[in-house]
């Protein structure tokens, strides 16, 4: 599994050698990977199930259990699945590149949103605070020491 930083980097500059069908499959995979990070950070085992044919939807649902704020990315996950369908079902469509661009931006939003929430999660239903899930205990204690020292 790639790190969150690697996922962000890929979304900044995707592999231009891939054709649209291959590329959108990578975007979908990245959507699944960032959601896996969320589930693992909360002590869960990422599901292999699919919801409505998509693992990204099953993972989003799994991630939102017990955390209503995570539903803020429910529609983003659905839009990613929708744009995957648009590109793969009509690869010769005249708008395929525009659809691919939109799929990229939707996947990028998912990566930024989940990555951001992981970094600063816990403030409440719709926002975030300083519970640094990305940091280990020593790092957190070190930061706390700097802030209060």
């Amino acid at each position, binding site marked *: 599994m790639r790190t969150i930083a690697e996922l962000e980097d890929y979304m900044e500059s995707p592999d231009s050698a891939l054709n649209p069908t291959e590329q959108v499959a990578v975007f979908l995979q990245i959507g699944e990977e960032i959601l896996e990070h969320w589930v693992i950070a909360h002590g869960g085992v990422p599901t292999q199930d699919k919801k409505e044919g998509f693992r990204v939807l099953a993972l989003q649902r799994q991630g939102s259990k017990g955390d*209503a704020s995570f*539903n*803020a*990315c*429910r*529609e*983003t996950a*659905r*839009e990613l699945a*929708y*744009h995957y369908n648009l590109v793969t079902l009509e690869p010769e469509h005249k708008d395929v590149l*525009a659809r691919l*661009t*939109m799929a990229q*931006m*939707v996947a*990028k*939003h998912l990566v*930024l*949103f989940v*990555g*951001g929430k992981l*970094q*600063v999660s816990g*403030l*409440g*239903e*719709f*926002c*975030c*605070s*300083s519970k640094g899930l990305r940091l280990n205990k020593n790092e957190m204690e070190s930061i706390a020491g700097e802030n209060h020292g």
Partner: protein
Amino acid sequence: MTILIDKEVRKAKYKKVAYYPGCALEGSAQSYDKSTRAVSKALGLELVEIKDWNCCGAMEVKNVDPEIQTYLSARVLSEAQHKSKQDVVMAPCNGCYHNLKKAEYDLENKDKSRAVTEKISKKAGHETYKAGDVETIHALDWIKFGYGEEELKAKIKGGLKGLKIANYYGCMYTRPRHIFPEKDQGRDSESTSKPHYMDDLLAIAGAENVEFPLKTACCGGAHTLSDSDMSTKLVLNILQAAEAAGAEVIATECPTCHSGLEMHQIRALKRLSKKTNVKVIYFTQLLGMAMGLSPRKVGLNFNISDSMKFVKEKGIA
């Protein structure tokens, strides 16, 4: 809670409503307040500002003690009912709207919320709000049903002239679903997965709405203080997506989203050297200008980003 679907009933009920501007519309979102009041006047819809309103509890109180947030929102509803003598409260701010709806849900379904609200209300010396006594609506409901879409068509002067708009609703207008029992009720009701009320109103005003897949995506507003760079990246992606969708303007209906989009648009240029040209304008400002109100009348000059030249070039003002 009664779910009102009948358009005629709504029209009569929303003609005169209690107005709850909330903190944002008195501060960073003055242009939203100004344009809401201007549109109200132009449409002949009466706003009765709630006397002695208080903070809805926003995020800060809710995260420290959700029951106190419920009380604070309940007090606003109580003031509307008992002091302002209104049974509908219109809240243009998504945060306020969301919190009043959440309080309504909690007071109907949670014993603890009822007990805490009753205890503090008694101590504070005002009437305790009871779930179901007041209906909370958004500015979108208010215009769509209080004035009516057919009637609005007749009020458009000049219109938006095919302006390409990405309608951005943000994350709090439709979530969580259970606090909005009137949504997802079929025809004429709002959709929580693909909201469309703003699209509907601006299409009547002459806009060409673009397909925008991030219309309910998080703007990063809550990250602004704790992780500003993340907010900037989230906003930049939203702005770029709107431009990629062909939009010239992002229409907003949430002060947190609006100020975030405007501020991080500037920050993205300064910190990331990424320039976007899409304009960020409140839907009430667009609607007002479509009805012939001047840009100043709808507070366009109060927005952070300068759209004056743009609306003039487009022939909207």
